[in-house]
């Protein structure tokens, strides 16, 4: 990895690929790595911008990318508001958009590459229901309220909970995607709920935090199910601290995104499918080694 772009081996009049994302965790680091390595291989320059959780900033970033004339845009939507406004700017300038991770809230895009967040969350909660034989008190640890990811993962799990009426959500809290905050929040959840039997953490960072809180409370046998598939969670699954995660493939997504972005800007992208849902894998202690071998998170994995 390292700094993106710059030392392109191709003609300098080749247009750069703009990337707008909001960096919060390893998923994005892996996606970034996938993009950078693919771009370096193909000899294209990447301009990566981090909106740092601010919707208006993301819109500004896309505007800047458009005005500096990038050839195509890889877009990871922060939330519905920033999505529509950003993509319509790119559309207006005729810049092809490759959406990653999130389906944009509006505008036209060449393709969407991502995991089905709603389905992943549903599968994760289904797995939790399975572990608990469809019955018991569970807690949900949510991400930053109102971010797209938080809402989809909430929606997916809600569907599953609807089908598993035996599961009783006794606590819903937010730890803002933050591991450290999750330790505190979940320690309090454990205190309040003596009979807690299962946990759905909406991201791996928060699951890791919840696991260490459970460990300090001496209640590490509570099953924790989560989403993302960070390498650290694989280790935790191995140690039995976390039961399962829905592994995504950010590195591959990054690679595909760059390939498609190049194709779209060179005008060879007609046959790119509109939707490229990447398989997400339920990783438990049973299939841990296979999952590791896949290196979903690039060299980090």
């Amino acid at each position, binding site marked *: 990895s390292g700094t993106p772009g710059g030392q392109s081996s191709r003609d300098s009049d080749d247009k*750069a690929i703009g990337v707008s994302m909001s960096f919060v965790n390893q998923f994005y680091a892996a996606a970034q790595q996938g993009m950078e390595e693919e771009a370096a291989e193909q000899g294209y320059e990447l301009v990566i911008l*981090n909106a740092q959780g601010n*919707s*208006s900033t993301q*819109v500004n970033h896309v505007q800047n990318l458009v*005005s*500096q004339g990038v050839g195509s845009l890889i877009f990871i939507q922060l939330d*519905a508001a920033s999505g529509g*406004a950003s993509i319509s700017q790119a559309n207006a300038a005729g810049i092809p958009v490759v959406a990653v991770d999130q389906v944009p809230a509006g505008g036209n895009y060449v393709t969407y590459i991502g995991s089905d967040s709603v389905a992943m969350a549903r599968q994760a909660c289904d797995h939790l229901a399975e572990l608990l034989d469809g019955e018991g008190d569970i807690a949900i640890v949510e991400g930053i309220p109102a971010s797209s990811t*938080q809402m989809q993962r909430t929606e997916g799990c809600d569907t599953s909970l609807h089908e598993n009426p035996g599961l009783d959500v006794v606590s819903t809290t937010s730890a803002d995607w933050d591991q450290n905050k999750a330790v505190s929040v979940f320690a309090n959840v454990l205190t309040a709920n003596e009979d807690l039997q299962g946990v759905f953490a909406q991201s791996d960072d928060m699951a890791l935090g919840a696991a260490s809180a459970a460990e300090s409370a001496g209640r590490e046998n509570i099953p924790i199910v989560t989403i993302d598939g960070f390498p650290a969670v694989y280790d935790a699954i191995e140690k039995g601290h976390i039961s399962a995660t829905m592994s995504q493939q950010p590195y591959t997504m990054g690679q595909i995104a760059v390939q498609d972005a190049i194709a779209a800007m060179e005008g060879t992208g007609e046959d790119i499918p509109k939707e490229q849902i990447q398989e997400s894998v339920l990783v438990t202690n049973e299939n841990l080694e296979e999952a590791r071998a896949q290196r979903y998170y690039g060299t980090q994995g």
Partner: protein
Amino acid sequence: MATSLTERPTALPASAIRITQVKSRLKMLSGPLIGLVLLIAVMSFLSPVFLTTNNLINILVQVSYIGIMAAGATLIIILGGIDLSVSAVLGLSFMVVAVTYQNLGWPFWICIIVGLATGTGIGLLNGVLVAFGKVQAFIATLATMFAATGLSLYLTNGTPILGLPDWFLGLSQVRLLGVSLQVYLMIVVVIIAALWLKYRPAGRSLYAIGSNEEVARLSGIRVKLLQLRVYATAGFLAAVAGLVVGARLNAAQPSAGNSSDLLSVIAAVVIGGASLAGGVGSMWGTFVGLLIIGVLNNGLTLLNVSPHLQPVVIGAVIILAVLSDGRLLSIFRVRSRRQTA
């Protein structure tokens, strides 16, 4: 008896005084202004697209909502206060607009009024807490910041509201002479605030209050009333900024009021020469500070600096922009000393 010997200092001629005034005004601004000019020079040199009309307009567009909030923040900071709630109020007040429009189906212009009233109301609450509750401004506005953030999430349970009337989106989309309306709105707000601060008795009094509240009170300035007015104005302007953001995003996002916006707002004011101790600051300075932030954010994306290194560069440039003042001053000082010697 007490014989003392004193003599009038020789009075300076009026022209000399005028020069001193201009100088002292320049001094106050020189840091940020020179910082801005240097920044623009460097950016133009490094990036071929930086100095295009389009890009310069973009910069104005991108800072417009920050600028509207910063106008209010300038008043509050000169007054000796601080408002941490502005960006949260931005989020909440536009959420109120969208909810009354979409969920209650009210005519949109009424929703706008309700939204502006919400912002003004929270500002007023800040003012009441500060002026009558004697709560430190930092705490009072921290509390309303939390409350506003929570309420805007609570209103729709976190779901964004999409779809606003087309005519409203014009605020962001309609252009006059190639510049979108929101920029004019920001400029009008800044100019009105600047004129108010410079020419209205109430505006002048802010400096007195910020510099020494007791003296201001003894001089007959209605300190509390002014505090109320200024905090309410800041709340109102945050709601106006909310409209700008809403029109731009064509959506009301519960997480819209972001703490990084808050930092940009305060940074613009402080980089522009205002002191958080109160009594010092100007709208013009704030505008320069605002442009520094805008140019910096825009320029760094144009230069393709690694996203992780961008904050490092921003930090360094802010310091340089502010320090260029000190250095410049010391050069002046050495010179004038030599001349007197």
